[in-house]
């Protein structure tokens, strides 16, 4: 039963991702690999769209992946799955707010959890780099280290990085500019 499976998988993601929307990304990558529901490439596209539409990124991603897997009912089930653990946990915590914040064991656990969450996102980012900037297939086919990197993509990444440092626009503008550059310079070929 695909709908129950979606609910269950997204409830797990809601339960174990700490630190906001982007923290769900490594879990989604893992979900795609283990189920074959979507490719790394498709997930990176979905992340770009989730960043460019209104609403929380994590919720948008869940809705998008759910829709991709099983259409509108899938979108509903994935989103409900994602928010169910949050609701349960927050309902409990809100009863004992002050104690939770001061609890030493909770503080210690989060001392370990936060860098782990950062590490997971970094690893997921590395996964996206390997499909969008690196050309590992070309490299292993030819053995030429110069062919390991798509230099055009790398140049775009460096330009975007410095542009984002310089001007604090919303990510949606950088995504839109990238799309135009991609069309003008035929990035897909």
């Amino acid at each position, binding site marked *: 039963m695909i709908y129950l499976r979606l609910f269950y998988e997204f409830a797990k993601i809601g339960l174990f991702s700490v630190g906001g929307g982007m923290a769900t990304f490594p879990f989604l990558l893992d979900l795609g690999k283990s189920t074959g529901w979507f490719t790394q490439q498709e997930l990176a596209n979905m992340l770009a769209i989730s960043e460019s539409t209104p609403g929380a990124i994590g*919720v948008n991603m869940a809705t998008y992946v759910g829709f991709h897997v099983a259409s509108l009912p899938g979108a509903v089930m994935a989103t409900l799955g994602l928010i169910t653990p949050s609701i349960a946990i927050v309902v409990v915590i809100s009863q004992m707010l002050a104690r939770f914040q001061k609890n*030493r064991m909770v503080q210690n656990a989060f001392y370990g959890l936060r860098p782990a969450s950062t590490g997971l996102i970094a690893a997921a980012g590395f996964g996206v780099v390997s499909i969008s900037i690196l050309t590992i297939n070309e490299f292993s086919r030819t053995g030429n280290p110069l062919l390991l990197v798509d230099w055009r993509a790398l140049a775009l990444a460096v330009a975007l990085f410095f542009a984002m440092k310089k001007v604090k626009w919303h*990510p949606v503008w950088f995504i839109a500019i990238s799309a135009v550059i991609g069309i003008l310079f035929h990035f*897909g070929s």
Partner: protein
Amino acid sequence: MPELVDLFLTFSRIGILTFGGGYAMLPILQREIVEDKKWAKESELADYFAIGQCTPGIIAVNTATFIGCKRRGIVGGVVATLGLVFPALFIITAIAAFLNNFAEIQAVKDAFAAVRVCVCVLIFNAVIKLGKSSIKDHITFLIFLCVFLLASFTGISPILWVLLAAVAGILMKGGKRL
């Protein structure tokens, strides 16, 4: 208007107005929840937001549940959260249905190939930002590095690394250093 309906509609509006989620949501929450509806004080909102960041799940969802709970108990928490996620169902579904029909066009492929490069940079920036607040000393750096390498080069579920990191945090008793 019954407060439950008001909770649903207000959080739906917040869901539409927030672009990017998380931190982008804070100024809108301040205006709608603190100044307009007076459902929570400024300091309470800051508390909810801080706890929302360090409890599992999406920060925006956690904050909505907190405020809903405060006003109308568990039902309020559920209703506020459903309100928040409701607009995404329409917007994302429409975009996904649209894009599915155009995914094979060469221009769309070209656009997304470059957009994925942009996604790399966005994730990189998110890691830098999160790293500044989460990597505080040698131990947290070591946890970051181990999780990064293990998650990159083994196919084991991230859930295991999250659990181990929480246990490591408890054993190292590092919470006071934050």
